[in-house]
């Protein structure tokens, strides 16, 4: 039994049912999502991939509770999502760290809100600071860190707050290639260790195939799910392997086929 099969048999943690989302921008209504259905199992690593404007970030924000669906429902463990909560931790592309707090204070922010006492809080913050390899930088402010370090803090910040679902919105998009590779590996290690569920939005097919159990391809105008399939590769994966390349090519074709189709329709 491969690892992804273990995840498949897990019970669903999130259920997106017939979700639609309309925005009104300057008197015009834009349909960002239409009839999106998605069920995610506990511990799964799912990548949402698609061109700009396909609604993948909107879907993530609905799961986070920052936006509400115009129609349909988003549920966690069968209960409707009514707003942001600690069990769903968002990692933003531009980090959104609190610039006036040090690394360890940022990481301890969530538990502090729940009134965790000082000593316990310190120990917890130290543990998660160590988990992302930033112990030496515990007292630094975000402005003194590199992009990769900032994103490590953002990940530790939601994990320290006991999040069950890690929502990542193109988290490594702003980083250079070497840092991105390193963080991808670290994220996989954290995921395997903590068994947290991950929903990861990306532009990059290679990133999706490298990281996820399952790739969900979305299309624009209005945003909907075009393809939803498992990545048939064992872990750890090697981006230079022949079978990896094959899967990547398949996914790229799925992604580009409807892009060209949409362009033909628009022309």
């Amino acid at each position: 039994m491969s690892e992804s099969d273990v995840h498949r048999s897990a019970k669903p943690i999130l259920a997106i049912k017939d979700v639609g989302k309309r925005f009104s921008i300057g008197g015009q209504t834009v349909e960002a999502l239409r009839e999106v259905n998605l069920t995610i199992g506990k511990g799964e690593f799912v990548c949402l991939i698609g061109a700009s404007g396909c609604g993948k970030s909107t879907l993530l924000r609905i799961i986070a509770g920052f936006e509400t669906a115009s129609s349909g429902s988003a549920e966690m463990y069968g209960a409707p999502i009514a707003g942001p909560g600690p069990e769903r931790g968002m990692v933003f592309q531009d980090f959104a760290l609190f610039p006036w707090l040090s690394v360890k204070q940022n990481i301890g922010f969530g538990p502090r809100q729940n009134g965790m006492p000082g000593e316990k809080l310190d120990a917890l913050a130290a543990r998660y600071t160590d988990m992302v390899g930033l112990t030496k930088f515990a007292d630094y402010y975000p402005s003194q860190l590199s992009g990769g370090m900032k994103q490590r803090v953002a990940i530790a910040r939601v994990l320290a707050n006991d999040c069950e679902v890690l929502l990542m919105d193109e988290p490594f998009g702003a980083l250079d290639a070497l840092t991105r590779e390193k963080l991808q590996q670290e994220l996989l290690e954290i995921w395997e260790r903590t068994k947290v569920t991950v929903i990861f939005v990306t532009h990059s097919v290679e990133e999706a195939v490298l990281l996820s159990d399952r790739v969900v391809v979305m299309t624009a105008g209005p945003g909907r799910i075009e393809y939803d399939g498992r990545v048939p590769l064992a872990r750890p994966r090697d981006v230079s392997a022949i079978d990896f390349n094959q899967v990547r090519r398949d996914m790229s074709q799925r992604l580009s086929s409807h892009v060209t189709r949409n362009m033909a329709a628009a022309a």
Partner: protein
Amino acid sequence: MIWASSRLVDAAKTLVVPVLFVLAWQAAVKLSGTRLIPAPREVGLMLWDLTFGGVYDDAFSKTIQVHFWASVTRVYSGFFLAAAVGVPLGLLIGRVKLIRELVDPTLQLLRPVPVTAWLPLSMIFFGLGPNAAIFLVFLGAFYPIVLNTTFGVRSVDAKLFEAATMLGCRGSSLFRQVVLPASLPSIFNGLRLGHGFSWILIVVGEMTGVPEGLGAIIMDGRMLSRADLVIAGMIVIGLAGFVTDRVIVAINNRLLAWSPQHRV
């Protein structure tokens, strides 16, 4: 050692323009032969007499402390009052839509009125005395404080609110833990501007007929045609404003250590 010498060089650089200015002043007085403007040396003598006495031994000798503390008290009464009202009001205007809609238009309507135009009314409201001066200082410091605070609150990154609510921070806690620290750079900017205006307005405020104060001795100097007294008063105000501004900057740099672009 290198550090110390570079500090010395920096200090020397700041002195270049004042020294050149004093030399030009001296030359201009000498070449024009004017009797209306005193030479730097006479102003120096006046400052000495104001501080230690023993030169002219008149009503102004050895009185600088009295005037200085009278002005300091008024400047900081007005300034702290403005901060105490302006910062909370700015936070509310920035954060609560209803309060913004109620208060902001009136504020914008009153703001272009020069503070000096309030002088006659402030004398009617508060009579002759320090309270009228404090009121003018308050008005002058109030607008920059309230406007900068509002601006700071309005420009807090929406993602920080999302991040904080997601981590379980809500209600008044959000205000204290996100809004306040995030707008601190703007609040400090407003305080610094308002503080500068306070020292500017003290002279106007002390035109209202108070017997003591740096503004009052400048008015006395004008009445007695003693330009040396006027310039001495100006120098003391300038120095006091400068030193207290450095104190605010030091507090600013300490509280905003996290934000390199807000260090002064």
